[in-house]
């Protein structure tokens, strides 16, 4: 369950309007160096640096992030897919999608509440979703059309569906316990004929 901070509670109780902004943070892999490259997009204007989850993150705006479908929450462990629509011709998105390898890249969505009177963040944006990029639809529109790129994000429950990488073998057993030779003959068991008696 999400814990809502005192400033947000106070803010929600007042009659002033509230501005909600979405922040998206992707940690993709650099195609050349293999290092992790991060990129933030938000629904506000231009570039802002916000401290989120203990680090200062730069979020680029000005139309890069067009929209996020309503996020469905449910109890249980089912894997949900979330679609995020971004502008496909903004330089930041081009960099993310074409410059970095986004396969299974971790992605976080935060929501920040902004006081309509002071135009400042009420408190640190809270996280709505954490998952990995599952697919990208990068479509070229008809002439004069709206350029959009759609990211499909799988939530973090999908990590639970990963298969076990351990094999039924001596090597796997010895990785866990070097002296354990219980599986020493596992790979040839059943193929070697054992004679009883003579």
């Amino acid at each position, binding site marked *: 369950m999400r814990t809502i901070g005192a400033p947000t509670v106070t803010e929600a109780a007042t009659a002033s*309007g*509230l*501005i*909600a902004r979405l922040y998206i943070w992707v940690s993709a892999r650099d195609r050349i160096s293999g290092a992790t490259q991060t990129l933030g997009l938000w*629904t*506000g*204007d*231009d*570039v*802002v640096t916000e401290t989120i989850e203990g680090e200062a993150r730069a979020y680029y*705006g*000005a139309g890069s992030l067009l929209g996020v479908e309503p996020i469905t929450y449910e109890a249980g462990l089912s894997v949900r897919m979330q679609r995020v629509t971004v502008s496909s011709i903004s330089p930041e998105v081009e960099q993310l999608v074409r410059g970095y390898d986004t396969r299974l890249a971790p992605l976080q969505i935060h929501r920040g509440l902004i*006081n*309509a009177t*002071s*135009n*400042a963040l009420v408190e640190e944006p809270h996280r709505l979703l954490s998952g990995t990029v599952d697919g990208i639809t990068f479509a070229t529109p008809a002439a*004069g059309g709206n350029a959009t790129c759609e990211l499909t994000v799988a939530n973090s429950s999908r990590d639970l569906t990963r298969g076990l990488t351990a094999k039924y073998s001596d090597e796997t057993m010895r990785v866990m316990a070097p002296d354990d030779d219980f599986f020493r003959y596992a790979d040839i068991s059943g193929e070697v004929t054992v004679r009883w008696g003579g």
Partner: protein
Amino acid sequence: MAQNYPAQLLEFFDALQVTTATLELPVTQQVSRTAGGEVITAELGASLWRGSVTLANRPFTQANAVLARLRLMARPGASFLMRPLGLAVPVSDPAGSVSGSSVTIDNLLAGGRELSLAGLPSGFVLTAGDCLSFSYGSTPVRYGFHQIVEPAVADGTGTTPVFEVVPPLHPGAAVGAQVALINPVLKAVIDPGSVREGREIRNKREGISFGWIQTLR
């Protein structure tokens, strides 16, 4: 030589002969009408200036020269500096004598709704409706263009109290930036699909118009 973007004032906007122009600051908001009859609004996105410009009827030769520049500016990736024509000078300084080089941003309040200026002549009056612009950031350089909402008077040292502007300052605006009160400029792109190239009548071309939107990129 190929044009560099944004095109400077002299390269494009000041070469136009404008007859009518509009300037708007639309608000991106969501609206909810309650059963109680009230209207509740909340902001959805940033506000950028936009407007339209109609050019004077000119003989072919002049109109074609302008049209060539306009067609260049309508191409993807092009941007230009422009200045809203009715807002070129502060009300208190119609001759435009205040030096543009000495005025700087003195203080910025969090949230960007209010700021104060330094470096003005002592007692200089800023009137509601005056506009100011400044540039900040890099790759690309951003141009902030804001209209003063409440009047402010510079004190003996040339510093004003904080005053509010619309739209709120965009993220990235910094203290110390040089402010233009005379001929404030903004960076704009042509609204795609809004260019009307006019029609030829006798020896003139009439009805050239285009719409523009401010851009921060």
